[in-house]
Structures are given as structure tokens and as C-alpha cells.
């Protein structure tokens, strides 16, 4: 729980010196409590108070930063159980597995597939982002060589996996620019692993079976001064993994149980050899609080559905999803293709573009900025009026791309057709269907 203004006030010098920019210490304390000021503004606060306040204001689940300085990725840092309560911030990372038992050619092929697996979608680049690199024979030289190959052949984030600290160290030195994760500290090797993570300033996975053992392990590691930890409960059966992910999230958020206030690693690669089943296991972990899911092999037919699911789950529900205003070519339209216009509410865009793409009729889809409102609401709010839409069509540049002068408008905005005809005298206005599902039949009838 965050501290109240009064609780913070008690820890301040109470001198009302105004050096923080606030008239009184109480005003400063209130601003701190609501996150509008930073403690560093007070030059006289005691070290002890600083520590207490830092502890109280630390996020309940540690945000762990990975990757090179110019492309940092964060996992953890979540603040709610359900996305509609605020949003989920940091999407589950999707990782593939590489081991020192794989041949050079196999590794090359997997790196190549990984680099090509990038999908464009409404201005976003969807892709998996990590490799877990596993030592299987205790050969540090071989391990370092594999890590080097991944560093050279991809831009993947890296998780180094071995139960031997010296092996991890060999890999970490090669991968240090990408801030690799060390996997894993267990009760048996905690001292050495903790010391290594501390020395190299790298995130470390704590792995133990059962809640008590895991809490004990993370408490020990934080006691050694480590902050960037991840959790692996050791469970490899779906039911237990699901429960553990929920328990960790809830314990960290509600009673603020610090030993579980870290992102979670789910190794679905170790749960089954069936790649289809692994994918649905991974989907369970993406929906329910996994920080990283490790699959045994990254193939587009299984990764693509997970990328879409992750996009959906991690979309911020607080803001209407908006598509940029402009011209969207669907099914490779040319100068004789149909032209249609609708609003920039993302759901409208997805449904309309999905229907058009599904029926394969080449179409120029014009998306007009309606501040994220759907057709009926935008029309009612005057953001999809005849004048407005007409001006937009004229300025959109569509006349340079297409010779056709017929404009299809949404059925729910049929009322604007008169004004639109006045605004666009050279155009023929066609009233499309009200429901997107009738678009294919409509387009095919033209």
C-alpha cells in the first residue's frame, strides 16, 4: 500500500524551508503521496526516511529491464489482476530454445527463422523477442560459442540457462551488451549464483519447488543486494503453473508480499513435446500473468496466433484504440478499384478491413479521424458529417491514386449522403450496409 500524505509528513524535517518548491512540508508530503513530487527535492530528508519511502513507493512487481541500452524491454511492473482495472503494461516475452546439443546448421536455421518472423500490423511490428540458451553438457567454451553465434546472428534478448555459475559466466561475458537473464539460482547454488548476478549486475531467475522454498530463496537473494529477480515455481503441469502465476501476481499486489514481487518465467518447452499443445499452454500463460514464455521451437504458424493474443491482452483498455487517419490499400487496389470510407475507431477498422480482406475485392479504405468513435457515435457527435467527410476525401489524396469517383459510406451514416453529394459534386455516393458482415456481398454486387 502506498503511504498517505500524513505518514510521509511524519518522516520529513518539518522545517517548512520551502526549498522543495512547496510552501510547507505538509504540502510537499501531499504532493509526494499523489506522485506529483519527488523525494529528491527535499535536501534535508534523512537517509532512514529515504529508505522507508523508497520501500513504500517501490512498484509491487519489480520492473526488470533487459536488452541493449538503445532497445530496452521491460517485464514485470504490473499493477492489476484484470486488464480492465487499468491495463497490463509489459507484454509477455516469447522465447525459443537453443541448446548446446544442437548442430551448427540447426542453430543457424533457427536464428534465420527468428529474424524473418516479423509481422506488420496497424503500425506495429509483431515478433518474438528472445532465445533461452541452454547448456546441456557443462562445456563452457561450447556454451560461449553458441551465445556468440546468437549475438552475431540475431538481435534476440537472451536468457542463459545452466546450473553451473561458471558456465553462465562464460555466456554472460559474450552477451553482456544485451543484459542477459541468468537461469537459474536454486537452493543448492544460491550463494554462487547470487554473487555472479551481483558481480555482473544481471537479472537472475530464482527457481524452487513450492511457495515457501521460493519465498525463502528470493528473500535470501534480495538479502545479498539483488533487485532484478524472476520467479520459476518449478511447476511443469498446466494446472499448477496456472495457479502459481495467479498466486504470485495476487500475493505481490494485494498483501504486497515482497518475496513474490517479480516477473515469472514459464518454460512451456518442458511441459510437453507436442508443439501444438505447447502453443495453447503458452496462450494460458500469456493471458494469466507470464513474464516470459519459453517454447521449444519458434515457428510462424504457432507464434503468430500468440502474437495476436498478446497484442489483444496487452492493449490498453483505457484509451480507445485508434488507427491513423489516411488511405489503407486492401487486396492490392489499383486506379479502378472501389473506394470506401469509415471511422478511425480501431474495432471499426479491424472489422471492416477484415471483411474486405476476407472477400478479396481490391478496395481503397479511407479512414477518417473521428477521435476513436464508431460510426453511429461519430455521426451523432458531428464528427462524421457530410462536410467533414467531404473535406477529408478531397484532402486525402485518393484522387491521385484512383480514377473511380464512387464513394461507399457506412449504412449507419446514410443520413450524410445529401451533404456529401454537395461537398463532392463529381462523386457518386453509395450507401453501404449497416453491418460489416454484409460488406462482402455488397462489394461483390457492385
Amino acid at each position, binding site marked *: 500500500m502506498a503511504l498517505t500524505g500524513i505518514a510521509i509528513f511524519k518522516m520529513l524535517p518539518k522545517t517548512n524551508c520551502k526549498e522543495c518548491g512547496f510552501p510547507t512540508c505538509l504540502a510537499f508530503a501531499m504532493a509526494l503521496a499523489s506522485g506529483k513530487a519527488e523525494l529528491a527535492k527535499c535536501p534535508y530528508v534523512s537517509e532512514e526516511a529515504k529508505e522507508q519511502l523508497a520501500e513504500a513507493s517501490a512498484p509491487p512487481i519489480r520492473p526488470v529491464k533487459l536488452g541493449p541500452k538503445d532497445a530496452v524491454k521491460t517485464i514485470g511492473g504490473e499493477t492489476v489482476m484484470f486488464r480492465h482495472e487499468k491495463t497490463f503494461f509489459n507484454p509477455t516475452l516469447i522465447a525459443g530454445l537453443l541448446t548446446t546439443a544442437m548442430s551448427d546448421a540447426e542453430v543457424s536455421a533457427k536464428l534465420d527463422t527468428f529474424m524473418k518472423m516479423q509481422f506488420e500490423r496497424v503500425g506495429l511490428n509483431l515478433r518474438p523477442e528472445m532465445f533461452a540458451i541452454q547448456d546441456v553438457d557443462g562445456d563452457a567454451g561450447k556454451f560461449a560459442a553458441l551465445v556468440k553465434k546468437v549475438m552475431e546472428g540475431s538481435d534476440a534478448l537472451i536468457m542463459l540457462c545452466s546450473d553451473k555459475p561458471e558456465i553462465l559466466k562464460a555466456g554472460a561475458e559474450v552477451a553482456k551488451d544485451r543484459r542477459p537473464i541468468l537461469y537459474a539460482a536454486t537452493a543448492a547454488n544460491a550463494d554462487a549464483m547470487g554473487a555472479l548476478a551481483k558481480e555482473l549486475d544481471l537479472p537472475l531467475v530464482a527457481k524452487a519447488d513450492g511457495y515457501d522454498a521460493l519465498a525463502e530463496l528470493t528473500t535470501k537473494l534480495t538479502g545479498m543486494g539483488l533487485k532484478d529477480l524472476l520467479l520459476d515455481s518449478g511447476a511443469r503441469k498446466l494446472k499448477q503453473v496456472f495457479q502459481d502465476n495467479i498466486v504470485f501476481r495476487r500475493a505481490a499486489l*494485494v498483501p504486497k508480499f515482497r518475496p513474490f514481487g517479480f516477473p515469472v518465467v514459464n518454460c512451456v518447452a518442458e511441459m510437453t513435446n507436442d508443439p501444438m499443445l505447447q502453443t*495453447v499452454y503458452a496462450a494460458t500463460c500469456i493471458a494469466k500473468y507470464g513474464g516470459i514464455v519459453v517454447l521449444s521451437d519458434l515457428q510462424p504458424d504457432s507464434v503468430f496466433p500468440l502474437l495476436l493474443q498478446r497484442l489483444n491482452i496487452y492493449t490498453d483498455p483505457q484509451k480507445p484504440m485508434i488507427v491513423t487517419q489516411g488511405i489503407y490499400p486492401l487486396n492490392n487496389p489499383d486506379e479502378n478499384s472501389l473506394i470506401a470510407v469509415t471511422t478511425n475507431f480501431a474495432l471499426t477498422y*479491424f472489422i471492416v478491413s477484415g471483411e474486405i480482406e476476407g472477400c478479396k475485392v481490391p478496395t481503397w479504405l479511407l479512414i477518417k479521424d473521428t477521435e476513436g468513435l464508431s460510426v453511429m457515435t461519430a455521426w451523432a457527435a458531428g464528427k462524421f458529417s457530410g462536410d467533414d467527410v467531404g473535406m477529408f476525401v478531397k484532402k486525402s489524396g485518393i484522387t491521385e491514386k484512383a480514377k473511380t469517383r464512387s464513394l461507399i459510406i457506412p449504412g449507419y451514416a446514410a443520413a450524410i449522403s445529401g451533404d456529401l453529394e454537395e461537398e463532392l459534386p463529381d462523386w457518386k455516393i453509395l450507401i453501404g450496409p449497416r453491418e460489416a458482415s454484409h460488406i462482402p456481398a455488397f462489394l461483390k454486387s457492385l
Partner: protein
Amino acid sequence: MAFEIPKQTYSGAIRSVTIGKGAKAITLGGETSYPFYLFEGEMANIPKIAMEVWDTDPGEEWADPCKEPFKDVLADPVAWAKKCVNDYGAQALALILVSTDPNGDNAPAEKAAATAKKVLEAVDVPIIVYGTGNVEKDAEVLPAVAEACQGANLVLGPVQDKNYKKIGAACLGYNHSVAANTPIDVNLAKQLNILLGQLGVKDNTILVDPTTGGLGYGMEYTYSVMERDRMAALTQEDEKLQSPIINYMSQEVWKVKECKQTNEEAPQLGDQTKRGILMEAVTAVSLLLAGADLLIMRHPEAVKLANTIISELAS
């Protein structure tokens, strides 16, 4: 000190709704916790999957990977229904009366009702019968189905706020359940349940159909509305939201571009069949975790994967 799981207290439960007749009737709902949170509650009945059957040959509408398992029966809904039950072990069927679409074949209500009756007589599992979502036409078609299949305890839908009186009354008169459909909104879902209640439709014959968005095409809206439904039902004792949830998901999944693109058209997306099955299975898992009690699904392999997840999480 040993760690204790911080538990959520639940004050409500999801209502049990039984659909179908005889030995193969199934009961939905009965949860006393969030979906599969079995460490702090119960799932009296595990979620079920109904396999989709169309009353007309889907032809170009369906991607090839979906037609392949049914290629010998696509033109015959009765044979198709039997295949789902006998070959793929379907626990329920969803007969979609696509032929009645006024923008398509516009088949008359009597013809659709006769098909529904034939399918009903051919199998012993519960049947969900869906119209095309056209308010006026569904209000003709579904009451005709209700009458022809009197007493079979079908689920008829989608029942919307503009046609609930006609379809609701028919369900009441001929003993069927309803799938109350609203456009991705908690309050509208509640409102329609209240209206159905005022009509005399009993709470234990109502399923909620929250409208389902496709994977990558708005699925998250459905996901969050279902989670909010469950939260209201289980922790805020909102009785009018304590109905089991049905999702007609397969149509939304398979109609998107990425499911229809063949291996030649989109080599960068991998194998079309595997991808489509996984798009459907991943959607199913997401909806199950959000609170689905009954899913309408299409591909037998996707059904199998979803059933595996259900049985592993609920075991």
C-alpha cells in the same frame, strides 16, 4: 512462517443451466470462483464445446483447412451432425441456419425448422440453433424451429433486444433455452436478461452471448467484458449476470485474412492448417480463461486442444 495463498472471497455463484434432453443432456455453469481458480472455489460443471454445423454448404465462405475434415458431408447437415458426434465425439452441436440470411439464400423459416428437426432426430447430444443475427428474419425462423423441435430443450439464439419478445415467448412456450446476445457491453447484457425475465423466461434457461471478437480483431473487448461479467456475478452478487456464457467464436476466428491465406499466398505465416487450428485454439483458451461455459467451435483439432486445456485445468 509458512506462506498462505491470499484468497478472493466470492459471494455469488454462476447459475446452472441444463441443455438438451436425455442421457446426453449437459449442465453448464455452477462456478463459485473465477474460471479454473480451483484453489479457492469450484467448477461444478466444466465448460463444454459445441461443434459447428451449417445448414448449407459453406463453399467459398470457409477456408480449406476447415472443410477438409467434413468434405464428404458439407452439403448434408444431418450427415455432418452425425460425423461430429460419431467421429469427433462432439458433446453438443451448434446448427447455424445460414440459409435463412436475407442477404443470401433467404430460405423460408419452415424449411430451416425442418432441417433443425431432422438434425435433432439424428443425434442425441444437445443442440444450439443460431440464426443469422438478422433481427426480423430470426424472429420468424427461431420460433418456427422452437415449435418444430418442441420440448427438445434447444438453445436458440442470438436473441437480441429487438426480437427477444417473439423468440423468448417461443422458447417459453416450447421449452427451450435462449442465448441472449448483446454487443460487448455488461450493462446491455444485464438489461436484456431483465427484459427476458419480465417476459417470463426463467433465469435457469438463459445463456449470455456477449458477442465475440476475432483473435487480433477485437477479441480483447469480449475478453474484458466477460471478466467484468464474472466479477459482477461472483463478487458483487449481481444476480442478473450470473448466467453461463456462450461464445460463437469459430466464425469470427476463421473469417479473418490470416486464416484464409493459403501457404502460397502467405508463406511467411507458416502452414495454413496449423495456423488456423492454433488461431482457433488460442482464442478458445483466452475465452475459457475469461469465463466461457460453452464455446461454438469448428475445426476438430482445435476442439481437441481446447478440451485438453479444459480437462487439465479442471482436473
